């Protein structure tokens, strides 16, 4: 049994110079066989393992990660969490996640610093207004908190936004979801890892999948850099690398992996206490608990696994930032980085069985996967455990690309990211 984290445990350990803390998770050797293996030790993968163990009582499972857990998009995103999506299916999925976020720190006994400081989406042209209002109405009827703000209300809610009518694309209003916000991305991976480990899940880092063994239409296990591991169920949660894993069983997915960049400024005293996103003037910004402005840039248009993007994207993003926040002109970019995001044609994810028995895919989260982490893990765990999707992820099957029943979140009013 792990020692519980609390103010008291902190005090107790203080007197021993913090030399008696336990490992947050073990570093086990892979077993010969597991009841299920999750490929990918990001937030989604670790959450999947955690819920498989916790809710479906599967304890003999492993998470295999080619690098270090949380080292992919989990540790590279701008940590925005919201559920104000347009279509019922998406709203259901993301709000399911948001509800779990609201109790996650307590459930994991790990403070993921989920901060419900609100997310505001700005409208800059008449079609933006129509689209965002449409989305707000849909959210309201779906029981998701979302309100429309006129320009003055936008200014009131976030005074540093440039709401002058004289800018190139004036702010015509916006939507606000108060329950939305941010969380500490690393803590999410570490919290789930610690929780899963405690339930007996083996977290195996530096273990890259090299091949998938199948017998006819049945999965038999995975070849890894640490040997062959047997399992009848494989759940792939490899984000940008999903297509690479899929190619091991000659599956092609409706995905393109593209560079997504983000950056932070030097830390400054609190200046913006919410998350502001803009689609037309493409920029979104929040401020971390450390004081850094966290700024999300866009994706490049070409496929790349290099974890680098083009400078024009960063320049374009900061251009937009200075249009909306001229006071940031003398702030400095401290660090810039790139991730690899797997994007579906309809900008919605895939949480689905495949036509191979025992092989499941959770991918296509594009630029917005972090917010869904708990929900994605929970629903994927359900799909794997029951070999059947949960009603909340039924719409996100691979088959929708054949039938044409897409969940088109960018054709509609979805905000990029």
């Amino acid at each position, binding site marked *: 049994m792990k020692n519980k984290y609390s103010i008291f445990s902190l005090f107790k350990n203080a007197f021993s110079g913090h030399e008696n803390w336990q490992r947050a998770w073990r570093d086990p050797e892979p077993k010969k066989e597991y009841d299920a293996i999750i490929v990918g030790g990001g937030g989604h993968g670790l959450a999947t393992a955690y819920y498989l163990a916790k809710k479906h009582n599967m304890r003999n499972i492993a998470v295999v990660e080619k690098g270090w857990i949380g080292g992919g998009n989990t540790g590279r995103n701008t940590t925005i969490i919201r559920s104000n999506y347009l279509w019922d299916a998406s709203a259901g999925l993301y709000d399911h996640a948001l509800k779990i976020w609201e109790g996650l720190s307590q459930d994991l006994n790990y403070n993921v610093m989920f901060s419900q400081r609100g997310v505001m989406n700005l409208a800059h042209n008449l079609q933006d207004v129509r689209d965002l209002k449409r989305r707000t109405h849909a959210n309201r009827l779906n029981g998701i908190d979302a309100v429309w703000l006129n320009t003055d209300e936008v200014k009131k809610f976030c005074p540093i936004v440039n709401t002058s009518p004289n800018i190139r694309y004036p702010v015509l209003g916006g939507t606000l979801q108060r329950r939305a916000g941010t969380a500490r991305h690393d803590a999410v991976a570490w919290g789930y890892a610690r929780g899963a480990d405690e339930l007996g899940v083996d977290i195996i880092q530096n273990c890259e999948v090299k091949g998938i063994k199948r017998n006819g239409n049945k999965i038999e296990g995975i070849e890894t850099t640490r040997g062959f591991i047997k399992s009848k169920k494989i759940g792939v949660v490899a984000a940008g690398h999903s297509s690479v894993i899929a190619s091991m069983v000659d599956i092609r997915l409706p995905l393109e992996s593209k560079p997504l960049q983000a950056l932070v400024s030097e830390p400054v005293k609190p200046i913006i206490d919410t998350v502001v996103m803009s689609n037309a003037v493409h920029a979104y910004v929040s401020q971390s608990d450390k004081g850094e402005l966290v700024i999300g840039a866009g994706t490049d248009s070409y496929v790349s696994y290099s974890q680098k993007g083009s400078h024009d994207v960063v320049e374009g993003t900061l251009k937009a930032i200075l249009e909306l926040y001229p006071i940031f002109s003398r702030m400095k970019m401290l660090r810039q980085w790139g991730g690899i995001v*797997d994007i579906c044609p309809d900008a919605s994810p895939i949480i689905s069985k495949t036509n191979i028995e025992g092989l499941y895919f959770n991918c296509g989260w594009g630029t917005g996967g972090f917010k869904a982490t708990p929900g994605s893990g929970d629903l994927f765990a359900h799909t794997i455990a029951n070999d059947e999707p949960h009603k909340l992820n039924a719409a996100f099957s691979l088959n929708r690309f054949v039938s044409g029943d897409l969940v088109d979140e960018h054709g509609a009013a979805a905000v990029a990211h």
Partner: protein
Amino acid sequence: MFLINCPYCGERDQSEFSSGGEAHIERPKQPTELSDDEWADFLFMRKNIKGVQFERWNHSHGCRKWFNLIRDTSNDKIHGIYKMGEKPPKV
């Protein structure tokens, strides 16, 4: 920013070009003969290769010509360029 050697205009900055995704996915000549799965395959399914990929680029802010480019998507190194309709060079 890549430096791309347009087969018509020569070496130019990436910002003059736009990417057209995976190359050699020919539009079916007789779409109506295809099953829904085959059509979905053409429409949506991609190799999305990590490694050497054949892709389409357009010199959209230059001569507006489309051409093919061979790029290693794991490090963005360009290994070759050839015109539409030409056989890809060996890499």
